[in-house]
């Protein structure tokens, strides 16, 4: 569904971002706006800079030039954990779960930002520290129920099959109740059935919590089904940005994908 507030100031504004690793020019002057409640898909051939853009938004890389505004405030130079505190959560291309912890603990780590309290009280696990821990456990149980992973609640994350690990990672990101959710290829390496489940979960969470979602995806049918807007990157440049049906027929995009020789 198109967000009603297309005109209102965007939740996230990425302005002329350039990122360089030594000689490699990963991103050149990329500008993207994401409005509240929108699902934006970032597509493009391998090495187009999709993950780099996501890393810049989540504060993991700092751009050489250009600025990023979140809810209207400039936060270009923020450290990753400050960016997370603003309400931006993400999943990773090749699953970054905490292997040594159980699924429940992994998801509870997603709520760290919401936990306050003095460490001394934690030491005796009494009073506010205990109440807070139990309240957050209840919130995490809602997410577990929503993503239907009750059965694997106490299994160590390292032992799970690939598809479930992806879902636990989504649960961890959701547990932080983000305003902006960055999904880095949530369906990579999944079979058809798992893809259907994951798309349903993404749409459900978008309905249920109204979270704004930016996702990187290769599967065109999935992109067409679930995204309101599509941004196409190629060799670090933005070559298209608009509703899926239009972008799909855009000649420049087809060239990028079908491999027309570049100058």
């Amino acid at each position, binding site marked *: 569904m198109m967000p009603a507030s297309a005109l209102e100031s965007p939740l996230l504004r990425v302005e002329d971002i350039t990122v360089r690793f030594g000689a490699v020019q990963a991103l050149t002057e990329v500008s993207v706006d994401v409005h509240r409640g929108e699902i934006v898909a970032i597509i493009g051939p391998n090495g187009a800079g999709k993950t780099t853009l996501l890393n810049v938004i*989540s*504060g*993991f890389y700092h751009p050489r030039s250009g600025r990023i505004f979140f809810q209207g405030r400039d936060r270009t130079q923020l*450290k*990753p*954990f400050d*960016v*997370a*505190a603003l309400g931006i*959560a*993400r999943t*990773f291309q090749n699953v*970054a*779960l*905490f*292997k*040594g*912890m159980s699924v429940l*603990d992994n998801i*509870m*780590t*997603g709520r*760290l*930002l919401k*936990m306050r*309290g003095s*460490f001394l009280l*934690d*030491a*005796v*696990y009494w009073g506010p*520290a*205990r109440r*807070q*821990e*139990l309240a957050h*456990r*209840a919130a995490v*149980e809602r997410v577990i129920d929503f993503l239907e992973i009750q059965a694997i609640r106490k299994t160590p994350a390292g032992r799970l099959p690939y598809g479930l690990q992806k879902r636990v990672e989504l649960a*961890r990101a959701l547990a*932080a109740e983000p305003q902006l959710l960055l999904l880095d290829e949530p369906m990579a390496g999944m079979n058809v059935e798992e893809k259907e489940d994951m798309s349903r979960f993404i749409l459900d969470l978008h309905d249920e919590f109204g979270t704004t979602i930016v996702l990187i995806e290769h599967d065109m049918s999935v992109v067409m089904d679930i995204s309101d807007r599509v941004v196409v990157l190629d060799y670090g440049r933005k070559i298209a940005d608009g509703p899926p049906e239009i972008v799909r027929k855009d000649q420049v995009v087809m060239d990028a994908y079908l491999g027309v020789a570049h100058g």
Partner: protein
Amino acid sequence: MIYRETGQFKTSYASDQAIFPIAQDRIFVLLAVAAAFVVPPLMASQYWLQAVLIPLLVYALAALGLNLLTGYAGQVSLGTGGFMAVGAYSAFKLSMAFPQVNVILVFLMSGVVTALVGLVFGIPSLRIKGFYLAVATLAAQFFLIWLFNKVPWFVNYSSSGTITAPTRTLFGVTVSGPQATAGARYLVAIGLVTIFALVAKNLVRGRVGRSWMAIRDRDIAAEIIGVRPMRTKLLAFAISSFYCGVAGAELVFLYLGSAETLAFDINLSFLVLFMVIIGGLGSVLGSFLGAAFIVLVPIFLTNVPHLIGLPLPVALQKQIELMVFGALIIFFLIVEPNGLARLWQVTKEKLRLWPFPH
């Protein structure tokens, strides 16, 4: 076999997240702790208390501290000996300066001092990782030992360069100094280590423990999720050093009676690191199992030759002890790299499922 879990259902998150959710575990642990408090002081011989149980508890506390840092937060440290030295010397100075202060308070304050020192030596962990950090903590080890050797102020200008535990009482009972009985010193040690184990368990299962383990498993992902690496790592160093500081103070006040820097050299750091690795990284129980293993094996090795009737010259015995000790460590790392705690965990799992395999 022993476990009967039918009917143990949870109606609240508090009971689900208790330290020992299964009734049989709770009963077993409570009995064990109660026995640990009552049986040894009454029944154990002076030798067993002084040479086995008290060192075991003191080393267990140090192992617990190191396990928090290396097992849970993933920061390898070879500076345990140095930090224990800081604990011992500051306890000595504090108790000398304030004789009327309660000895437990002295221990805790020496722990705080060590925590500050640990904090300082934890700063490199922000920029360097893994072996580089381990070697950096060696700097702390050597510097601290050199400091206590070189600066007479620390030993109150005593000619012999050693610090001796003054006579202190707790609730009217002398617990440190020459007249303190082994039983009293044992009770203080067991009391402290039980409380500290509980505190460690609470820290580890809560917010703090999770951020440590996040940093240990995938520090980049942890940072992006909102874990502040600096605050988490330094907290780990501080708490771990606090534990090692108190353990150091106990080493002098409750175990050796007097000590000089040689008692806190690099070998002690390796010893405690063994306990954590053999016992099991990332497990509070593992620290105790590791300490027990490292304390009991040498005693076992020294006594066995007498029992089977072939007395060995002392030098040869020392060498064999070293060889067997080294071989045992390698054997253990091969059989169960995750340590005794994992061995116990696997056996417990089998008991809970008996007679089914899965």
